[in-house]
């Protein structure tokens, strides 16, 4: 099975450049997720890989073939669409076998494949139904079945779960994760939902404004976001962003702002040497904020709690720190004030710093 390479891919609509020189390498059998806000070019990229959209420039390699000028059917690709796109006048079995029938496979082979995939997706009992007689989740499964039956070497998913309700979505997400273990194929998955991206992807590609902001494993992106955009996009609830200033007090490096004074790990001293007494943007994950005060008082975050949202195992506090909104995740078991002033501290290792001009991570 082949790897996928995208080299200098471009897409322009008239004068408007949607994607400008995108480079991306996907290893064999890798599950790549393209994630980003709507209009970031992720779907367009996927459609160009599929061949539904012509590339304005650049190359797309699948294995050792340059496919960007080929017809979709010659690219050995299967695709699952956002809105299912089932043929409404055909029953489920005929929907699934459409590609094979077009390719004139022998009937026995078609039947065998459809039966096998239907069992895999547990939709065997639906084979003689029409799409309109199916629920949303069943339709989505059939749409996946239609892609699986083709046994193509590359699978493309264009926001396949975005039409399902929240409960079904998490269920289908788990099924997808299971399915991809059984079906070892190259998969490219487009979504705007960072949770889907984090849970499904081997590799996540965060896109914004037609450019790749960062790519890497889910934990890479979560722990070491390359810039403020990725930091704000990955993680739920999103990272808190505060304005502050780097300073050194008593030989210790810290970052200060209105309402907070947080110690930074000593080993970062060298990297931050040139930025002393200059403005920085501080990024704090809601989950890395701890309640109480440190013993030496070196790290403090004073907030005014406005609201506590009880979620279950943890609670989310909506608070105010020096005029900026801050969300804090706390364990529901531990006692905390649900309103009023409170003290918190932050683990030095989990503080993210960004350049206020370039927004790149420091």
């Amino acid at each position, binding site marked *: 099975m082949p790897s996928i390479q995208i080299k200098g891919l471009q897409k322009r609509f008239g004068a408007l450049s949607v994607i400008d020189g995108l480079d991306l390498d996907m290893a064999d059998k890798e599950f790549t997720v393209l994630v980003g806000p709507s209009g970031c070019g992720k779907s367009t990229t996927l459609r160009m890989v*599929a*061949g*539904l959209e012509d590339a304005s420039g650049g190359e797309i390699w699948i294995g050792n073939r340059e496919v960007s000028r080929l*017809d*979709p*059917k010659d690219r050995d*690709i*299967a*695709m699952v*669409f*956002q*809105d*299912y*796109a*089932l*043929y*409404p*006048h055909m029953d489920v079995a005929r929907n699934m076998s*459409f*590609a094979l029938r*077009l*390719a004139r496979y022998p009937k026995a082979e078609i039947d065998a494949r459809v039966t096998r995939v239907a069992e895999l997706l547990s939709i065997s009992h639906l084979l003689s139904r*029409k*799409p*309109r*007689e*199916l629920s*949303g989740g069943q*339709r989505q499964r059939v749409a996946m079945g*239609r892609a699986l039956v*083709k046994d193509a070497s590359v699978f493309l998913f264009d926001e396949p779960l975005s*039409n399902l309700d929240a409960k079904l979505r998490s269920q289908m997400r788990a099924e997808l994760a299971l399915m991809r273990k059984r079906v070892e194929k190259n998969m490219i998955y487009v979504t705007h939902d960072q949770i889907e991206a984090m849970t499904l992807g081997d590799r996540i590609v965060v896109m914004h404004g037609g450019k790749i902001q960062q790519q890497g494993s889910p934990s890479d992106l979560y722990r070491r976001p390359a810039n403020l955009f990725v930091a704000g996009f990955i993680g739920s609830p999103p990272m808190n962003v505060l304005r502050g200033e780097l300073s050194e007090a008593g030989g210790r490096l810290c970052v200060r702002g209105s309402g907070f004074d947080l110690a930074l790990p000593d080993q970062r001293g060298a990297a931050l040497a040139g930025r002393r007494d200059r403005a920085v943007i501080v990024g704090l994950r809601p989950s890395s904020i701890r309640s109480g005060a440190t013993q030496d008082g070196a790290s403090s975050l004073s907030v005014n709690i406005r609201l506590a949202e009880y979620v279950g195992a943890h609670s989310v506090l909506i608070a105010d720190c020096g005029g900026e909104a801050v969300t804090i995740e706390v364990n529901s078991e531990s006692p905390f004030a649900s309103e009023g002033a409170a003290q918190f501290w932050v683990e030095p290792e989990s503080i993210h710093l960004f350049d206020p001009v370039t927004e790149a991570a420091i």
Partner: protein
Amino acid sequence: MTSSSIRRATPASYAIVFVLALVALGPILVMLTTSLKLKTQIFGEGASFFFMPTLQNYDAVLSDGQNVRYLTNSLIVACVSTILTLGFGCTAAYAIVRFRFLGRDVASTATLLMRMVPPAVLTVPVFTIWTYQYGLNNTLTGVILVYTGLNLPFVIWILQSFLVQVPRQLEEAARMDGANPYQIFFMVVLPLIKPGLAAAAIFTFRIAWNEFILGLVLTNRFTRTMPVKVSLFINEHNIEWGQIMAVGALIAIPPLVFTFMASRQIITGMTAGAVKG
């Protein structure tokens, strides 16, 4: 519809419905009864609701070999022009809806403008061109062509409105499944616009079946169609009312059958379940 908007039927509403039914069905009733009468009964005095029905008129009409030939002509003309119109119509409408090309909007509007020209206006030019340029006068081909041209604008227009409802994603899915443009059109798009095709077919068939003026001008005694033949029952000697009505009753049957057959295809919600609405 909310329940408050459904009002109960009143005697007045029944009366209105009755009058409307009388207006619509009365002439048909007169046609049927007249076709079952002898000439003396038709012109006889007094109430004529009670009479001994006779099939003599039908016998006269059907035993005339000419009428059978004209009926066949009519069938050929109506069927062939319907098939041609639908064939050209659905492909043209598809091109206008789906493809981007120079003059697309002009083509779309122009087709409808063509429809606004009354057929009677076309009679003389069509006759001249058909006769002197192409030699198509007095042929069924000539009649079929002019009916096809006449109906095409409306069919293109009506099918456009059905085609824009076919989700583009379905066609993309078919492309991914390896269908070429013709397979997409015939295997995915056409089955979904069946209701539109049926409506267009009914419309086309009936126009072609009933058209009189162009049929009169462009045919001769071999290629005549049935509506033209009916008018020939009126001559300088007499008017064969019984036979006119019998022919009228007979030529109402094919479009009736055709309409019932085609209208079974008109079910709404063909694309239900295709994509999330």
